[in-house]
């Protein structure tokens, strides 16, 4: 190398590193969480008189939803958020809109991972107590065109509101292999989900940017940057938190647990400016299968060691939130095997102990017991009618369509296998709690209950 060549190279090296140090000096990550605005919960009235619901002629059996009393303590209602028949649906998430409505997202297609899977959305109007029409937000083709790269499938949409008030929608895309080959894309909306920006890909992993998936609800740090709970599945499984600046660029990544500890799909529960608890799905090989919890008391700077919680977990996603009074509410399959029951649980001691407030779905008692198709389909119809009052109206065509859709999944191998999974829960500003989950992989079920109902259940279970 000649003298001038060497000088030119030295100049180039010094220039590059000066620029890099200048850029790095502007990078700053502060720790501490932003607490969500407390909901405007109305004063709890001792009793809310509601009209007695019409007696359902069909669907009354020992597994049906509890009969509503004439005088109900609060509101508890359910619907189907998705409306497309004969498709597979999965992985719902919810976000409150500025006008108090709730928008849901999920993926839907001929089967999970198929090329025709799209990210769909619908809006729930609490005033009218109905879900609007299902719309396609994005899919494989539009994502591929926008990202200028091959995309094989899409999945797991998670929506949230950013610090600037816009809606952000994260979803996973896979170019190669199964879900372990996922990366995350981000779309934003300034009109509460009516229209969306082109997707952008987040680069989060050095190995072909694969294996970062999203499921849990994002949260905000005190400085307005966003924390996105994610997880890694390729080679080993572990939970992480991505940190995004206000423009959606990845500025940091924190590993919550080492690979091999089976932590997946973290849910972050912000308890104070400095304290948060992470609950994760357990996907390890231990004989005792429990939700794993990881805590911080330093605003997310340091996270403690993963420990087993008292919540059972059959290697399935869970959801949780912090109530304004500090209690924790969780929904999960509270069993070590199978996803055929779903339970609403509460903790009054920061997650140390939990107790069940309500069994939202319970089919585990019938596992492997129903052998004939007609009996199975009667059960499916009964469950569907109890999930959505609208199915009792009309000539029964709608209910028949729902049963026929669910049949493909529930009665797939000639048995009668139910699945209630991937719950996602939010609390809206009026204090209502909305829960969405996969109902037998064919519909997204939505459950809403209010503060009064919750208080009533708490009193009952004291």
């Amino acid at each position, binding site marked *: 190398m000649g003298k001038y060549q060497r000088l030119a190279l030295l100049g180039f*090296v010094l220039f590059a590193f000066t620029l890099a140090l200048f850029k*790095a000096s502007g990078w700053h990550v502060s720790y501490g969480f932003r607490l969500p605005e407390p909901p405007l919960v109305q004063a709890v009235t001792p009793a809310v008189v509601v009209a007695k619901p019409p007696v359902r002629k069909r669907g009354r059996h020992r597994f049906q939803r509890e009969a509503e009393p004439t005088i109900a303590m609060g509101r508890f209602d359910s619907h189907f958020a998705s409306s497309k028949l004969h498709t597979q649906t999965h992985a719902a998430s919810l976000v409150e809109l500025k006008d108090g409505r709730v928008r849901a997202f999920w993926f839907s297609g001929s089967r999970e991972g198929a090329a025709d899977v799209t990210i769909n959305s619908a809006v729930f109007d609490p005033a009218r107590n109905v879900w609007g029409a299902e719309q396609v937000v994005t899919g494989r083709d539009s994502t*591929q065109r926008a990202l200028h790269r091959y995309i094989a499938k899409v999945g797991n949409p998670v929506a949230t509101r950013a610090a600037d008030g816009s809606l952000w929608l994260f979803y996973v895309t896979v170019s190669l292999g199964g879900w372990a080959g996922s990366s995350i894309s981000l779309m934003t909306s300034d009109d509460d989900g009516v229209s969306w920006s082109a997707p952008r890909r987040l*680069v989060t992993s*050095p190995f072909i940017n694969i294996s970062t998936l999203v499921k849990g609800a994002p949260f905000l740090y005190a400085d307005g940057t966003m924390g996105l709970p994610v997880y890694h599945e390729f080679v080993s499984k572990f939970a992480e938190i991505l940190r995004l600046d206000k423009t959606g660029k990845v*500025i940091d990544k924190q590993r919550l647990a080492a*690979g091999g500890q089976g932590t997946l799909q973290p849910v972050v529960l912000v308890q104070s400016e400095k304290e948060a608890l992470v609950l994760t799905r357990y996907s390890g090989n231990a004989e005792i299968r429990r939700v794993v919890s990881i805590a911080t008391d330093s605003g997310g700077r340091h996270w403690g060691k993963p420990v087993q919680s008292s919540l059972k977990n059959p290697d399935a996603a869970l959801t949780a939130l912090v109530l304004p009074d500090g209690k924790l509410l969780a929904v999960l399959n509270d069993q070590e095997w199978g996803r055929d029951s779903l339970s609403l649980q509460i903790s009054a001691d920061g997650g140390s102990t939990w107790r069940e407030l309500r069994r939202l779905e319970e089919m585990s008692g019938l596992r492997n017991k129903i052998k004939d198709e007609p009996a199975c389909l009667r059960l499916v119809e009964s469950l569907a009618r109890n999930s959505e009052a609208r199915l009792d109206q009309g000539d029964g065509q709608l209910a028949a369509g729902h049963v026929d859709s669910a049949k493909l999944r529930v009665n797939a191998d000639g048995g009668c296998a139910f699945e209630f999974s991937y719950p996602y829960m939010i609390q809206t500003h009026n204090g209502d709690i909305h829960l969405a989950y996969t109902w037998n992989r064919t519909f997204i079920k939505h459950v809403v209950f209010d503060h009064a109902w919750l208080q009533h259940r708490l009193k009952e279970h004291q």
Partner: protein
Amino acid sequence: MMAFTDWTGLSGSALVWLLLALRLPVAARLTNPQRALFVAAAYCVVMLPVFGLSLAGWLRGMVGDLSLSSVLLLGAALFTRLRLLAGGAADTVWDARDRFALLAFLSVIALLLYPFALGVGILDPYRSGFAGIAFIVALALLSLWAMRRNLLLLPLAIALAVLAWSLGWYESTNLWDYLIDAPLAIYALATIGKSLLFNVRRGNRA
């Protein structure tokens, strides 16, 4: 409209296709001006979306954006191929010592990065690539050391990666993605491994 970072990412993938195109027999039969046109046309073809996806986009989906080290090596390979087809020398642009130093560096960082990034332990070296000043200073010192050892390619590759990261050349905000990519890591490990094995065998024979 295509974002700048999409164009840079696709162009990196296009380099691979251009190298393959220059292996076609037709490339050897062209005159130099015709070959320049051929390369330009091939670039357009691989960048042009057909049914929503270009060849460069397909490759980009499979392997991600190529690091600047890969781009540098592919660019050099393209130049060498063009020179050879024009009747010039078949020598590589970089001498063997330079190439070895770069590939050895890439092998070491591949071993430091990938196992831990894929879940070995709680520490994730990839995190330092978001803006770790210590990481940047370490790379600067390594570059200066390499220059003192009369190495050209290693400091050039590192400085190019650092500059590209500073300018936001790709969609990644992580410096590691500018230094190394998975296909290059495999190539570097295989080359260095083979070289070490050869030296061991030669030593045994001696």
